[in-house]
C-alpha cells in the first residue's frame, strides 16, 4: 500500500506530497512546474 511522502522540486523549489512506496522507483512530476527533478525529503513521511 503506497503511503504519502513529502517531495521537493529541484527546479522551482516547491514542496508537495505524492504517493510513495519504499523501494519502488516511479516517474514523478512537479505539480507546479512539471519538472521531473523531484527529490524526496527524507524522514518526512506523512
Amino acid at each position, binding site marked *: 500500500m503506497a503511503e504519502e511522502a513529502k517531495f521537493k522540486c*529541484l*527546479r522551482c523549489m516547491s514542496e508537495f506530497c505524492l504517493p510513495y512506496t519504499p523501494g519502488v522507483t*516511479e*516517474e514523478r512530476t512537479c505539480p507546479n512546474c512539471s*519538472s521531473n*527533478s523531484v*527529490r524526496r525529503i527524507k524522514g518526512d513521511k506523512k
Partner: protein
Amino acid sequence: MADVGRHPNVELHAYSEVDAVTGYVGNFSVTVRKKARYVDVKECTACGDCEDVCPITAPNEFEIGLSTRKAIYQPFPQAVPSAYVLNIEECLGNNPIACGKCLEVCDKKCIDYDDKDELINIEVGTILVCIGMDVYDPTALDEFGYTQYENVITSMEFERLINSGGPTKGHLIRLTDREQPKTVAFIQCVGSRDENRGNPYCSNFCCMNTVKDCLLIKDHYPDVDIKVFYMDIRAFGKGFEDLFQRSKDAGTIYVRGIPGEIEEDPVTKSLKLYVENTTEGTVECHKADMVVLSIGAIPRRDSSSIQQLLTLQRSQDGFFLEAHPKLKPVDAATQGVFFAGCAESPKDIKDSVTQAGAAAARANRLMMQGKVKVEAITSTIIPDLCKACGICVKVCPYHAISCDTKAKTPATVVEAACAGCGACSAECPFGAISMKHFTDPQIEAQIDAMLEVDAKDKVLAFACNWCSYSGGDLAGTNRFQYPPNTRLIRTMCSGRVDKKFVLRAFARGAPIVLVSGCHFADCHYINAVHWTQRRIEKLWDELEKKGIRPERLQLEWISAAEGQKFATVMRAVEELRQQVTQEEIEHTKKVLADVLEPSKLRAPKQPAASEEAPAQEAAA
C-alpha cells in the same frame, strides 16, 4: 485448431504452462509443465461414457456458468486434442478411490488417477507470446445492476447464449423466464474509456461486436426491438461502416448516452433504463426485457508472470509493449520474442490474424537464417577488475550477464542477449564493465572537450539516444528556440550515465548538469531508466553532503515526440545556470578535485578499430 493439432511440424502442448525460460535469441530453453489430466490423451476416443456416469456437477467455464459440466469433461466442443480431462479437485476422490465410475465404464481404461504433472524441456529459437486477454468484470458498476438483475448479462454471456453450440442451442431467451425477449438493450463502453471506474483505453472490438449481435438478432428474430446506448460508435475498419448502416436499416435504434441507472420490475423482471440522450438533450426512460453490457478487454491476469519469464515490458494499460510502435510492432524488446493478438493490445479477429502472420514471419526470418545479427554496442567484462559482486546481474534488464558470486569467478556477458543499455557499466563499482562505442574514456573526453572553454556559460546535458536526443532533434526541426549554450552528450540509454561522469562535469566547472532519458513507459531497455533515477537520487544526496546544491543536477524524462518539452526544459535549465555563482563553481571544483585524478583502477582496454565492427554475428 484441428489443423494445428494435425500439422506435422507443430508440437502442441495443450493443458500446459510455461514454468521457466532461460537463454537468448536462437537458444531459448523452455521448461513446460504438462499438467496432469488423469486421462490418457492417446487412448481416449472422447466417447463420453465417463461423462455420462460422473455424479459431480460444476459450472461450465466455457459457457460462462450458463450451463453445467461434469468433473470429467471435454473443455469445449472441437477441443484439440479431442480427449477428456478430469478435474481432480472436483472428483469425489482418488486416494482412496471413492467413486471410480468413470474408470469402470471406460472401455479403453485410459483414466489414471495417479497421473502427475510432467516437466518437459524444449529448446527453441524464438518465442511468440499469444496469451490473449481477459474481459472486464462489471460487478463494480452498480448502476447497471449486473449483480442484482438476472436479465442484465455481459456481451460474453450473450455470445454463448446466441451461439448454436451454446447452452440454449442458439435460441435467444431471457434467463428469468426462458421466454424470448421483445426488447434487447445494449450498453456500450462498459469498463472502457472511463479513467475513474474502468480502463481509460478503447477496447477496439466492442462496437462492431454489438453491431454484429444486432444483425444476428434481426436476422433470426425480426420482431425484436433493439436499442444501443453508446458514447461513440467506432466503425473504423474495412466494411465496418456498411455493417453499422445495415444494422440501422434493419431497425436498430442507436441512442447517444450511457444509462445512469437501471431498475427492474419485480413482477415482470423487465428493466427500465434511465439515460440522458445527449443528441436530443433530454432525459429518457427506455424499457427492455434484457440488457447486454458490452464489456471491454483487460490484460490477462497472469501477464506479470509471463513478463517476468521473458523480461518483457508492459505499457500503462497493462498490455505488453512492442519494441517500436511503427518499426517493430510485433517484436518484444527481448530479441527473439514476438507478440500476436490481444497480448499486445485489444484487437479484433482480423487484426489478430494479421499480427499473428507478421509475428510468425518475423520469427521465421530469424530461424531460416540460422544466425542473428546482434547489437554492436554491447558490454564487455574486464576479468582482471571484476570482483564477482553480482551487481551487474541484478541491473541487467535482459538477464544477459551471469556471475557465480560464491565461486568469485568473473561475470560473463552473453552478447547475443545484451541490448547495450550500459546500465551495468554505470553501476559497476569496480569499473570492470566497458561499453563498446560508449567507453568511459570516450564519454569523459567529450565532457572535457565541451567544458574546456567558458565552462561556466554552458549547460551540459546527457541525452538518451532514443527519446531525449530525438526530442532535441524534433525541437530543432520544428524551430523551437532554446539557448545555444546547451551541450549534449548522447548515450544509448540514460542508464549509461555513470555517477563519475556527472562528478567529472562538475569538477570541470559545469554550473548545471542535466540527465535526460525516456519516460518510464517508453524505456527502450525495459527498465534501465529506473536505475537512472535511483543513481540520480543517490547523487543528489552525495552532492548535498559535499556542500554542492543538489538542484545543480537536473533530471528530466523527455520523449522523442516532446520537442516542445525539450526546448522548455533547456530554457528552464539555462535560468538555473544563471543563478550559479562563480564562487560556487570554484568551490565545487575544489571539492571534487580528486575526481580528475587518474583512477586507481586500471583503465579498460580499448578495442582495436578493427574489432569495432558495425554489427556482429552470433550463431543462433
